[in-house]
C-alpha cells in the first residue's frame, strides 16, 4: 500500500515539475522580448517605414516588414489552400478503393513536412531563376506556399479522416455524387479548415529561411508582386545583427510585434472555430 502511495506522489511531483519547466520557459521567452523590446516600442514602429537614418538608430519603423509579412503569409496561405483542399478531398473521398496509393501520397507529404524551410527557399529560388523572377513578393509567396502546402494537406487530411464514414454513406444514399458528398464533408470540417489556416499562417509569418533568397528586402511597402518585400523575421534578423544598441532594441521590439500578431491570430482563430462548430456532430 505504501509503495503505491509513494509511486503516486513521485510521478505527481515529476508531472508538476515538467509542467513548470514548460510553462516557465514560455514566460521566460515572452518576458525577455517584452522587457528588451518594450523600451523601444513606439507608435512609429508600427506606423512608419524606415527613415533615412533608421539603421543607425534614427527615425522610422518597420511597417514595411509588417505589411510585407502579411502579404507573404496571407498570399501563401490562400494559394496553399487552393492547392491543398482538392488534394485532401481527393485522397480521402476519391481514392478509398486504393489504400496503397493514397498512403504513398500521404507519406510523400509527411516527408515534405519534415524538409527544412531553407530547402524550400533554395527550391523556390531555382524556380524563380528558371522563370526569370527577381527576388520579390511573388518569389516569397511561391517559396512559402511550398512550405505550407504539406502542413495544410496533412492537417486537412487528419480532419477529414475524423468525419465518420456514416456521414458519407448518408449523403451517398440520398443519391449524392462524390463531389456533393465532398461539399458536405467540407462543411463538417469547417473548424478544422480554420485550424489549418491558422497553423499555416503562423508557420508562414515566422519563417526566415524560405524568404531569405526569395522575397528580398526593401524599406518600402511593395506596391506590386514584382517588387521585393521586407518580412518581419528578416527585419528582426538584420536589426539584431546591428552593432548599434538602439537598432538591437528595435529588433526585440519587432520580435514583440511578431509575437503579438501570432497571438491575435491564435485567439481570433479560436473564436472562429467555436463559431463554426455550431453544426458539428
Amino acid at each position: 500500500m505504501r509503495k503505491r502511495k509513494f509511486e503516486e506522489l513521485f510521478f505527481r511531483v515529476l508531472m508538476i515539475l515538467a509542467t513548470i519547466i514548460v510553462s516557465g520557459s514560455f514566460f521566460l521567452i515572452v518576458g525577455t522580448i517584452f522587457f528588451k523590446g518594450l523600451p523601444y516600442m513606439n507608435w512609429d514602429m508600427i506606423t512608419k517605414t524606415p527613415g533615412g537614418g533608421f539603421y543607425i538608430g534614427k527615425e522610422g519603423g518597420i511597417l514595411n516588414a509588417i505589411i510585407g509579412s502579411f502579404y507573404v503569409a496571407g498570399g501563401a496561405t490562400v494559394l496553399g489552400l487552393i492547392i491543398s483542399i482538392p488534394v485532401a478531398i481527393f485522397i480521402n473521398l476519391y481514392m478509398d478503393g486504393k489504400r496503397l496509393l493514397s498512403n504513398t501520397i500521404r507519406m510523400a507529404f509527411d516527408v515534405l513536412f519534415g524538409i527544412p524551410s531553407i530547402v524550400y527557399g533554395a527550391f523556390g529560388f531555382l524556380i524563380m531563376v528558371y522563370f526569370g523572377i527577381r527576388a520579390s513578393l511573388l518569389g516569397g509567396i511561391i517559396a512559402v506556399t511550398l512550405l505550407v502546402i504539406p502542413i495544410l494537406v496533412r492537417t486537412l487530411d487528419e480532419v477529414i479522416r475524423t468525419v465518420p464514414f456514416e456521414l458519407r454513406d448518408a449523403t451517398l444514399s440520398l443519391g449524392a455524387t462524390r463531389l456533393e458528398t465532398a461539399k458536405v464533408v467540407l462543411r463538417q470540417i469547417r473548424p478544422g479548415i480554420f485550424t489549418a489556416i491558422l497553423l499555416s499562417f503562423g508557420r508562414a509569418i515566422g519563417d526566415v529561411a524560405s524568404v531569405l533568397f526569395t522575397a528580398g528586402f526593401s524599406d518600402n511597402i511593395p506596391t506590386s508582386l514584382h517588387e521585393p518585400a521586407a518580412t518581419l523575421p528578416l527585419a528582426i534578423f538584420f536589426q539584431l545583427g546591428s552593432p548599434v544598441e538602439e537598432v538591437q532594441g528595435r529588433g526585440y521590439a519587432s520580435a514583440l510585434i511578431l509575437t503579438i500578431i501570432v497571438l491575435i491570430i491564435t485567439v481570433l482563430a479560436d473564436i472562429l472555430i467555436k463559431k463554426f462548430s455550431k453544426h458539428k456532430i
Partner: protein
Amino acid sequence: MTKTPHISVQHLDVHIGAQHILKDININIPDKKVTSIIGPSGCGKTTLLKSFNRLWDNTADVKITGKVLVDGEDIYAPDAEVTRIRKKMGLLSQRPYPLPMSIYDNVAYGPRIHGIRKKQVLDQLVEEQLKATGLWNEVKDRLNASATRLSIGQQQRLCLARGLAVGPEIILGDESTSALDPVSTAIIEDLFISLKEKYSIVLVTHILRQARRVSDYIIFVYMGKIIEFGPTEEVLLNPKEELTKEYVKGYIS
C-alpha cells in the same frame, strides 16, 4: 406477387479481402412489407443490406458477383447509374448522422441535389416529411436551428425524413434503433409499421422481439447463407430449419 419485386437478389456472392462474406444469396424482398434480416453478429446481415444500394463501392478489397435487381434493373451492371439507384432507397443507419446544417436544410438536402430549387416546393416537402416522421410539431418553430441540437431519437427521425424526401420506394434500416432509448425505439418501430403502406422496408436487427413486433417476413442469415425465409410467425414460432430453431431459442448467437 406476380409483378417484379422491388428488390430481387440472384446468386449474390460478396468477398471482402480473403473472406467469403455472403454465399450464393437468392431472395425476393416482398413489396410493401417489412422484412427483417436476423442472424448472429458477423453473419453478413449488414453486408447484405448495404449491397442493395451499392454502398460497398467505396470500400477497398470488396468483390461482388451475382445480380441485385432493383425494379428489374441490375444495379451492378457496368452502365448502371449509381446515384439514381440510391435515390430509390432511404438508408437509416445505426446511429443518426444529421448533416452539418439546419433541420430544414437536412430534409431539403436530397431534393436540392436532385434539382428542386423552388422554395415553395421545398417548404412543402420538408413539412410533409417532418409530419410523416412525427417531428413537425416538435421542430416547426426552430427549423433553422442546427440539427445537432435535437435529441438522438429526434435526430434519427430527422434522418428518416431526410431519406423520405428524395421519394424512395424502399427503406433500408441497419439496426436503426440500437442507439436509441426505449421510447424513441418504439416511435421508430411504429413509424416503420405505418410507412409500409407506401414503402418496402428491409431492416437488419439483432433484437428478435423487434423483428417480431415490426416485420411481416423474416430472413435468417447464418455464416453468409440464407437459412430460412418466411412469414414472421412461421420463422420465429415454427422454424423449419434446425439452425433457425437454435438461434431463436438463443443457443447460437
